[in-house]
């Protein structure tokens, strides 16, 4: 059984975690017109990285969302930080991930 790191609870069994989506998906700015293509890009398109990936996960037992960096080939966990204030994480409590990515925030392998 693999263990993941919750930034709040420490090392826990992988069964306690839920994959919520890729980090850094920026919701279109709805104060202006948004095309179908832009919505499709946001709603459906994925990086689906081979190698280093940044993802939003929920630790179900404490209910907190956080950003975990993993290697999708080796399954190795490379780090995990609270969603709030994380590059690519959201500032709001909705976990939508609205902030811009940091300089290395694209999860490049």
């Amino acid at each position, binding site marked *: *059984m*693999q263990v993941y790191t919750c930034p709040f609870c420490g090392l826990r069994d*992988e*069964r306690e975690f*839920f*994959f919520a989506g890729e980090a850094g998906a920026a919701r279109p700015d709805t104060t202006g017109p948004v095309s*179908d*293509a832009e*919505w*499709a*890009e946001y*709603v*459906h*398109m*994925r*990086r*689906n*990285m*081979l*190698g280093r*990936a940044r*993802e939003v996960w929920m630790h179900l037992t404490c209910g907190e969302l956080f950003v975990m960096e993993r290697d*999708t*080939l*080796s*399954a190795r966990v490379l780090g995990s930080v609270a969603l709030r204030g994380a590059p690519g994480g959201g500032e709001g409590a909705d976990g939508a991930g609205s902030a811009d990515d940091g300089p290395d925030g694209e999860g490049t392998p």
Partner: protein
Amino acid sequence: MGSSYSALRLLREGLRGQRGWRPAWRSPKLRRAYDIVIVGAGGHGLATAYYLARNHGITNVAVLEKGWLGGGNTGRNTTVIRSNYYYPESCALYDLSLRLYEGLSRELNYNVMFSRRGMMILHHSEHEREIAARTVNAMRLNGVDAELLGRDEVRARAPLLNFGEDARHPILGAVWQGRAGTGRHDAVAWGYARAADRLGVEIVQNCEVTGFIVEGGTCKGVETSLGPVRAGRVGMAVAGHSSHLAAMAGFRLPLTSYALQAFVSEPLKPMLDCVVASPAHGVYISQSDKGGLVMGGALDRVPAYGQRGNLPVQEDVLGGLVDCFPAIARVGLLRQWAGIVDVSPDSSPILGPSPLPGLYLNCGWGTGGFKAIPAGGVLFAHILAQGAHHPISAPFDLTRFERGRLIDEGAASGIAH
């Protein structure tokens, strides 16, 4: 090239000490240009190459494979062939595939061991039974055979299922598709490879695509570990690695790659002569000709490219199977493995042009690519030959995600994918 396979040939070679067999396909040196280059020598890539030659007369074709042919999901699936889908678009697609499988051994002169043993999808509650009846009606309206079985009919077909009073999920009945069955997965890849090779297609193994040649905004070929190759059109059929190739071509796809696990038991005497799936337990099972129970279940819920699979899902699947078939609780497992499947938001495939002109997509089959190999090959060959959709492939174009016209088969097979 070598002569056809037949009973007479088998007898003759048997009497001559098996010395007359030739390799089933050549190992040609990669040339610098082809009319069409296909990336990925799995079932879909090889079938596409075969139908390009067979249906469209295009033989200046290369199939490039980074490993060995049929070594990805084609060699890792649980061999179930069925067309028990819900929407008309899906039934047209998967039933075309099933019909092609029915004549495939003869067509390819290669025994793909298609065994039309029937499949049942169990239901365990009144609510599931209502949905099952709706599925049967939808399948019949779409021209696909389907029957609603009661508890006794299920028991007659699979008496070892758990009909006990204490069953975690009591069995009420099943959706039956009699034309469904299983096939020999490796033989499908090898049969298409041999038949395509005999028509002049070149299959180049150990040749990894590392990038695309783009000139004037159009794909003109691929960069490979064996050097650049130019092509009139490029098709990719790389399943779980589709997003990785798309990133090289500069676009994203609506796909997430997950590990899908499968298991095979030690060989047993015949105990199950159809395919059984149980959505409530999240499992499916059949028995191979060698006697092994071939079993699978839900996806690992962790995006992954490592072909291993995780322990929590193993526990869920094997626990569910023991609930279903209490008699197999002490049967030993022979092997466990995983393939990387590319799951789309509506659990339907993506066929057609990509955002990069000259590059075409065959991906998004998720957990159900094996059964679709012949249809995927026919349709993708049509797309690559004509540069335009076949009527059956048109609804599966990538633009459906922008148009909002999804074909949501998420619940159709009864396994959450």
